[in-house]
């Protein structure tokens, strides 16, 4: 099972100024969005999950073992993390070797790595650019390369740090497909997001971070209903939810289809 258990997690970069103060969570099979203001501790939290940082207090258990006992590199087989800025990782002069870097590091042989890299590039629709220099592509295409380079490692847990940043409509659609595809393969997806519409539409569970604490946690449907809590975390409700609120509809709506369906029924009755 891909379960991550977080117990009383505290973290601070410098003593006295705490970034996370006592987080208890169990992350399991659902697609999970983490939302919150900049500085709320979201990125720090996923770095702790990935073993790039170690807790100041408390513990993170993955498959029952403490992440403190691993290096980030040795956790790479199990947990993949896609960073915000693709320029922070791309160093090869063609797309295919960039994507094969991770798989080779975690012990896949050349053939297997190539196979996984190509199938990951297919998912981000860049499999026609294998020999292109990544820096000849646009920033949003490089972002897709950095996503592929993690997908190719075939980890059971995939974490994304703000994947929608700078993506246009088509890019977001592609991401949606990728996330749903990973879910269908039974993987645990955790995603930091600033885009509430995307979070509402794509993720089953949403966790709201605020000043190093978990302010709300539950099915996205429940979480996005709580306008006051979201305001407290300096967030907005998804657009669909806002319209439903304006109209004073009961229940909570997250997608176009749900709202349209409900309104059609209301208008005919």
């Amino acid at each position, binding site marked *: 099972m891909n379960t991550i258990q977080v117990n009383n997690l505290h973290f601070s970069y410098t003593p006295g100024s705490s970034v996370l103060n006592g987080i208890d969570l169990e992350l399991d099979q659902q697609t999970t969005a983490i939302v*919150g*203001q*900049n*500085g709320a501790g979201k990125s720090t939290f996923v770095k702790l999950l990935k073993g790039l940082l170690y807790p100041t207090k408390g513990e993170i258990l993955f498959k029952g073992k403490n992440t403190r006992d691993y290096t980030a590199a040795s956790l790479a087989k199990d947990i993949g993390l896609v960073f915000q800025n693709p320029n922070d990782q791309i160093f090869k002069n063609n797309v295919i070797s960039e994507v094969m870097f991770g798989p080779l590091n975690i012990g896949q042989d050349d053939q297997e790595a190539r196979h996984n890299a190509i199938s990951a590039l297919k998912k981000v629709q860049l499999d026609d650019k294998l020999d292109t220099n990544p820096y000849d592509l*646009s*920033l*949003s295409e490089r972002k897709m390369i950095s996503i592929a380079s993690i997908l190719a490692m075939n980890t059971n847990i995939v974490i994304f740090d703000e994947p929608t*940043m*700078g*993506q*246009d*409509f*088509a*890019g977001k659609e592609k991401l949606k497909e990728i996330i749903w595809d990973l879910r269908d393969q039974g993987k645990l997806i955790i995603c930091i997001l*600033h885009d*509430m*519409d995307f979070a509402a539409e794509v993720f089953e569970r949403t966790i709201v971070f605020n000043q190093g604490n978990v302010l709300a946690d539950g099915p996205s449907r429940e979480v996005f209903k709580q306008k006051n809590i979201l305001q407290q975390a*300096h*967030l*907005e409700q998804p*657009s*669909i939810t*806002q*319209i439903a609120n*304006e*109209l004073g509809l009961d229940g909570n709506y997250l997608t*176009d289809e749900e*709202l*349209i369906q409900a*309104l*059609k029924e*209301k*208008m005919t009755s």
Partner: protein
Amino acid sequence: MSIIQVEGLKYKYPDTDQLALDDISFEVKQGEFIGLIGRNTAGKSTLCFALSGLVPHFFNGGYGGKVFVNGLEVRQHEVGDIAAHVGLVFENPFSQMTASKYTVFEEIAFGLENMGVERNEMITRMDESLDLLDITSIKDKHPFDLSGGQMQRVAIASVIAMKPKILILDEPTSQLDPQGSEEVFKVVENLTKEGITIIMAEHKIDKLAEYADKVALIDHGKLIDFDTPAKVFSRDDLPDYGITAPTATRIGKALGIKDSKTDLFPVTIKAISREIGDKL
């Protein structure tokens, strides 16, 4: 009299074959807020550069047609001179800080010092911009000690202090959290009240629909449409240009509900809620 006039603008980056801007013509009146939409690589940034003179002066390459900003033909003037008329703000707040100043106040002074603005006038203008952007409380902080949203507002203040008639923003909110984005949109709307003309490239369609007077849709370097948000977002072929309509328009279309004022599909949450509310 239009403050921006673009006539048959064509441009191609050095060492490329494809036109980045292909025969673009449009006019903008003073004080208008224009939203620039289109998929990544459609040519939005290039158009922003062309309006601020970086195309062709900084990027070189092949250039045709004419661009007038506040009466100046861009091609005939240097970027530094155009800067007094056109301000440019872009995506990354961090790389817009000069990295040579120790306080926000000094950071904002940078452009004014370069333009040789007399000191008393400089301070008056800086106080005005600090006030307009609501950042007076952070004026003594180091620019790199700010949040992304604050840094982006400092970037806008630095440009506004130079008193441009036109402000161009190229995806100014894409690296900001929801609150930071909202801050930027509010501030920019404030500027239109001061008579400043705004051109803003954005992916946040719902927000643009709420704030923009007109929308320019660009694809493959061509201007596909340039009209009110209601008209542009009512188009059925938006997906062909990598665009989705605002939430309100999508719902309006699905239910066949139009805005009673314009007889077009609603574009804002307020409008759609009002129209549906009337029918329930």
